[in-house]
């Protein structure tokens, strides 16, 4: 396998959870805010080349990384540069996302980027048809055995965990906060990202306990999910699903939006853990109850599904590195 380093930034911390788990050799680099950032990044990459790195895989095309890629390709024609696209159509409304995505496509056309990996099948299909060198990369997360924690012992209260990692529109926060209102004897543990979330829950008289995530990383999320009977992550649109994996791996069912390519149509696990209407709190309260009633079955189905999925994901990672 060609010696590679996966490079990631700190702008989208949520993305780093899965990506650091998926790839063995990873390194954080700066965003190219200033000339200093750019030159220190370049120096770091050159050191890696000296030590035998043959390819760089960038997670996204963040600020200034286009210049970095151009510099690398100018000086080291033999070094392969690949990018894992960490945006999707639904996010292109924002100039930052859109401009970086358009730049990514342009660099690919100019052959400064050798290969693009898309985390959404839909995106992959479109750009494959348009002639871009690209592949579909399956997101994944595998729990290390020493990270397994004891989960909450069932009692009379249903603890529901909602831990959005960003206070952004796509997280569908307030519709999710409504769900416990339709579940008797429940308590909501949630990541406070804005005072309005507290105010909303108080105003609507929804029983809750603040459970702020101090850091967006694997360990912090594990500590949160194990306190709950179920976690909910019904975002409108997503390309990584870290909360789903972390929760399910710990044995806590997690309800997600119909936003992933994880499952095939008709797959039994999907019927339990995927909602078809992310903004419908009544339907999602019913989905939560169905998950709780079938908890053991869901975890068994997950283990079975995950075994096969791990293989598929590993194959897609290896194929991408080998391109």
């Amino acid at each position, binding site marked *: 396998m060609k010696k590679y380093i996966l490079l990631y930034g700190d702008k989208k911390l949520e993305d780093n959870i899965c990506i650091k788990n998926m790839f063995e050799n990873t390194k954080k680099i700066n965003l190219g805010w200033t000339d200093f950032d750019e030159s220190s990044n370049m120096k770091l990459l050159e050191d890696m080349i000296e030590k035998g790195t043959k390819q760089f895989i960038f997670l996204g095309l963040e600020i200034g990384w286009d210049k970095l890629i151009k510099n690398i390709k100018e000086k080291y024609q033999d070094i392969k540069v690949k990018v894992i696209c960490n945006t999707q*159509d*639904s996010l292109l*409304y*924002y100039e930052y996302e859109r401009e970086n995505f358009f730049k990514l496509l342009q660099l690919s056309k100019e052959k400064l980027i050798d290969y693009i990996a898309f985390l959404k099948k*839909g995106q992959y299909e479109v750009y494959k048809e348009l002639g871009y060198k690209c592949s579909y990369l399956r997101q994944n997360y595998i729990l290390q055995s020493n990270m397994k924690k004891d989960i909450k012992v069932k009692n009379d209260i249903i603890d529901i965990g909602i831990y959005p990692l960003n206070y952004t*529109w796509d997280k569908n*926060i307030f519709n999710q906060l409504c769900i416990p209102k339709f579940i008797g004897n429940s308590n909501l543990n949630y990541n406070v990202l804005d005072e309005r979330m507290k105010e909303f829950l108080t105003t*609507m008289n929804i029983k809750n306990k603040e459970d702020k995530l101090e850091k967006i990383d694997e360990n912090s999320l594990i500590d949160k999910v194990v306190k709950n009977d179920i976690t909910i992550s019904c975002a409108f*649109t997503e390309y990584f699903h870290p909360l789903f994996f972390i929760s399910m791996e710990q044995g806590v069912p997690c309800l997600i939006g119909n936003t992933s390519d994880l499952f095939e149509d008709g797959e039994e696990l999907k019927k339990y853990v995927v909602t*078809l209407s992310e903004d419908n709190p009544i339907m999602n309260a019913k989905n939560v109850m169905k998950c709780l009633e079938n908890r053991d079955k869901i975890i068994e189905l997950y283990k079975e599904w995950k075994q096969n999925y791990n293989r598929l994901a590993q194959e897609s990672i290896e194929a991408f590195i080998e391109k």
Partner: protein
Amino acid sequence: MQKLKNLIKRFIKKDSFFYKVIRKIYHILSTLKYKIVNWKKIKQEDKHYSEQVDKAVEILQKYKGKEYVVFYNPTWLGVAASTKGLFKNYVPLEHIHNKKDGEKLAKAIANNNIKSVIFSQICDGWINTLEQIKKLNENIKIKVIWHGNCYEFFSDYTWNLNKEVMDLYKEKKIDCFAFVRSTMYEFYKKVGFKSFYLQNNVHLQDIEKIEKENTGKRKIGIYNADTRELKNIYTALSSIKLVPNSIADVVPINEGAKRFTEILNLETTSISDYIPNEELMKRIQQNEVNIYPTFTENAPMFPLESFEMGVPCLLGNNNDYFVGTKLGEYVILTREDDPIDIKKRIINCIEHKEEIMNLYQDWKKEFDNKCEKLVEEFVKA
């Protein structure tokens, strides 16, 4: 300025006290700047709003002694179409910036002996007006139609307005609410508010029917989708790209989306500006299908308008239309962010267009009856 903003964002945590102070100061200063720079425009606007109040007072005379009147803002196109589609005694009314205008309107309502006043959403200054009405005659019922869903509480304006109307309900200045989505109705009822359920409806029999040109291409429309991220315009464009022999008609199309169609090498007949609704209704009749794969809604008007013009419309699984029906199986999307799924559904919809339109005709008859009953219950309350 953008660079400065980025720099601040880089070094200061978004939830920190310091960030909030800077944001507040920035907000105050920009409001002040706006007022100074645009004082002439603001003065003209205020004059315009006062004239609208005078017109509303005139219209109210027409409804003397009526059971109800409903106010709506004619510039909020969706709300306006929805209100006019449901109620008979409607009165267009824009923002009220002058307290005296509010008092004038309240007096006209009391003097015309109108039994209940419905506010279809709340504009600037309407809260003061409804308080004035209750002051003049506490027996006049005040009802508010809330067109948003909880997603919208992400916006400062909507959340603050929601808190205000909830407080007014607690102070008995608002008698009840109506919601245009069942989930909102159930939620507010559970929270303890007297709530009613309405559904938006459209009646477009007067729009001229246009003969469809045969271009040999599949024309697919995306409309009123450029203003918000929720409208999901980029996924919609990608899905059209995947449909063989397709052309996208996008109105209005913004610069970003236009560049995207170029990158996709997607043929379009799009235009950049909004066009009057009547013109739009004629335009969409040239399409095979329209798509409206938004992420969250209440009771969107466009899908119904499209069906009324004889063109099926795919819509997100985020409203109460067609739920549990065969028609719904054809046109409700459950993967709004997946262009492959939307493409498959477009093709399926084109293949079953006739059946879909027949199913719609049957559904609409029942829906019209249902809407009428719901309005009746709300008006009588």
